[in-house]
């Protein structure tokens, strides 16, 4: 099952602050909904274990993520992730571009494609897209709150 999503999120911090936040595995990793465990391997790699419940399929998914940035394209982030658990598999490729907005804020333009296999897709398939949208929104809400509450201090 393939899910494609995209969106634009607005935050009231400077683009540099937003970019620093979303490229920090320690900070952005903790914004994942239903996070059980986070292990940061280095500045661009982390492993997260999250609780997943889609219809009758419930359990934990282990996600290995890799971030890629390019100094020549400041404000652009590529994130790929591979997840497994509950006899299921997940592969995500995503891109984010951060643009400044008037008033000192930033706009996070993102797109993602997720391929899901196993019971998560076959049993929970009809509910998966809605659930993915809900969880994605929850993650961006958490990012926004963290940025705005703390002015995105490093290492929070």
């Amino acid at each position, binding site marked *: 099952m*393939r899910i494609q999503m995209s969106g634009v999120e607005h935050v009231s911090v400077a683009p540099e602050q937003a970019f620093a936040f979303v490229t920090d595995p320690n900070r952005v990793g903790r914004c994942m909904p239903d996070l059980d465990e986070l292990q940061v391997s280095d500045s661009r790699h982390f492993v997260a274990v999250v609780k997943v419940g889609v219809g009758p399929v419930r359990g934990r998914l282990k996600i290995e993520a890799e971030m890629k940035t390019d100094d020549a394209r400041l404000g652009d982030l590529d994130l790929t992730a591979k997840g*497994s658990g509950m006899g299921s598999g997940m592969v995500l490729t995503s891109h984010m571009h951060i643009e400044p907005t008037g008033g000192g804020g930033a706009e996070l333009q993102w797109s993602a494609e997720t391929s*899901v296999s*196993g019971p998560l*897709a076959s049993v929970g398939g009809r509910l998966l897209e809605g659930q993915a949208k809900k969880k994605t929104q929850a993650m961006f809400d958490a990012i926004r709150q963290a940025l705005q509450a703390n002015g995105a201090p490093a290492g929070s």
Partner: protein
Amino acid sequence: MTTEAPRAPASCLGQAIKRKEDPRFIQGRGRYLDDISLPGMLHMAIVRSPYAHARIVSIDKQTALDTPGVVAVITGEDLEKLGLHWMPTIAGDNQMVLATGKVLFQYQEVVAVVASSRGAAYDGAAAVEVEYEALPVLSDAKRAMDPDAPLLRDDRDQKTNHIWHWESGNAEATADALVKAEVVVRQDMYFPRCHASPLETCGCVADMDKATGRLTLYVTSQAPHVYRTVIALVAKLPEHMIRVVSPDIGGGFGAKVGIYPGYVVAVVASIVTGHPVKWVETRTEHLTSTAFARDYHMTAEIGATKDGRVQALRVHTLADHGAFDSQANPSKWPAGLFNICTGSYDFANAFVDVDAVYTNKPPGGISYRCSFRVTEAAYLIERAMDVLAQELKMDPAELRRKNFVAPEQFPYTTPLGWTYDSGNYRATFEKALAQIGYDSLRREQAGRRARGDLMGIGISTFTEIVGAGPNAQFDILGLKMFDSAEVRVHPTGKAVARFGVRHQGQGHETTFAQIVANELGLSPADVLVEQGDTDTAPYGLGTYGSRSTPVAGGAAALCARRIREKAKKIAAHLLECGEHDLEWTEGKFRVAGVPERSVTMQDCAFAAYTNPPPGLEPGLEATFYYDPPNFTFPFGTYVAVVDIDPGTGEVKVRRFLAIDDCGVVINPMIVEGQVHGGLTEGFAIAFMQEIPYDTEGNCLATNFTEYLVPTAAETPHWETDRTVTPSPHHPIGAKGVGESPNVGSPAAFVNAVVDALAHLGVRHIDMPLTRDKIWNVLRQHGVDGA
């Protein structure tokens, strides 16, 4: 000479005797596979692939081995060391037992975990870590031959997804007839992938006794002798050291014909651990990995005259066989008996071809309550005839009436090579139309249609081909498709009859007792029928494809007649006359012209053991292996009447009449039960069942919330009746009925629904006819239901 035994009825055939097997079933005393528990028995669970197509990067089984209760973890690499990681299929392909290198369909078997309890086995399976690298997926059979389609079976010499091409009939003459025809209709139709999904899933208990070196395999098998031979060949075990026991089976419908990887692994696990090992599928495992049915993409073309005389039929089919070609068909018939697709109609020309391809879906291709692709064929021709009627603006009943094979044409040879044994299609058809009140229904429909109501009448006048099969042409893995009976009459006149077939609810314990009793002048109560144990039953090819009554039923009658011949010698001895002086009437040997001088079979049986004639071998038993001279060809007329709610798309089956002709009826109550069951399955296939896959090869019907089974609440009321046209070559004139209702009914339902919508311009809708599909069709044709 005294005769104390109760007098047997003049004929046991045609009697609605209550099923002898039911008392144990309705008391919960059946002994199914999962009821078997052996001392020291271990349990097995299987780790399955989440991906439809992926390379296996690594398998980490240590955590599973550390799980409490886990005894062994078996991978494909472990089996490879034994040469058992692949196994041959019935269709002549090879299939992975546990995956090595890569997986080819979602839920494919990858690792087996053996543990002290079922729970521990599943815990262990959950702890196995398999890393995959996803590969491009092919889930659409129509893309299989595209140049950019991923190659699935790189293990084969042929680097293509095409498996085989098969054809039947005269291509040139058919093409010529279609060119010259006044009217030609062409219709694409898809018979969706569906699943027999019996109440009891598949399973086995493998018990290798290391002390004796003998393997006993208890298994849910419709063909236990074939299993024994295949296991001997695959596992290289001596066949006499294998015993296969098929206990009571909770439904099979074709799903329990093939040999599944789980069985092979369980045997290996028992050998490795030295313990009996039980493996029982979950419902999801059953739906996602056990053999599917249908999945035929068909195109039918009919050429006809303007006044509705059919002249030519051309059919092309693309068959989706999944990742391995493990379809259960006779060896020389890769598309089964699909070339029965000219049906009940007198076509002068016909040609059919089938191309089979691999996809990233589970393997299978079984005959789900039909005889080797016959449901697909019957659906195709019955649907196509309605399309032609619509094109000609002719009543579909009138079109059929014009084109039936006439009674005087039998035995009738079709342009695709079958010779139909007997039939009177018109008589059955007219009986059905009269009984349902066809003309009155058409008048009602016209009135309702004028008021905007959606009412439809669908007809299906199918012909089946069952009883595989004549040994000259039909075999499975080289094993000729005969079947067998062994009957022993004990000194007190009671008999045990054993068969090579294995019933799964068909009622053989009753009907086969009736056949034997009828031939021997016994009461059916005095004949015990045993099946399913290869140590005791004579060799047979099993129960599927409606072959039991046509083949094993024939063996039963001829075996009993062989006993009767011997009994006649004993009777002559007892009555002190010559054999030629005796006649067999009303279940007794009587001296011709002196009817009061008679002996019963019980008398003969007692004498066979206590007072045999000089020079005659004592005892009274026989074995018969029956090679049927031809198939039998049951037929029928089914009529469905439906009303469609224009607001919701819901179809209500108002009436359904099934008139079957299965030749001589052995037990009318059992026939009626068979018809009820088959119609309910046909109803489910038509309206609610499909195993769909998304573009990633994910199975989207993995349980009974997605793959629906009708309950009493949804199931329509069935009206049934019959005509009787005996088979001229079957020993008792029977033809078989178990699968006719599943074969004949889907077309009747779809024809009725399309008929209800025909005035809107609808010509065809693929099954399943779900509410949302009908609702969308209605909206596309301007019906808003307001």
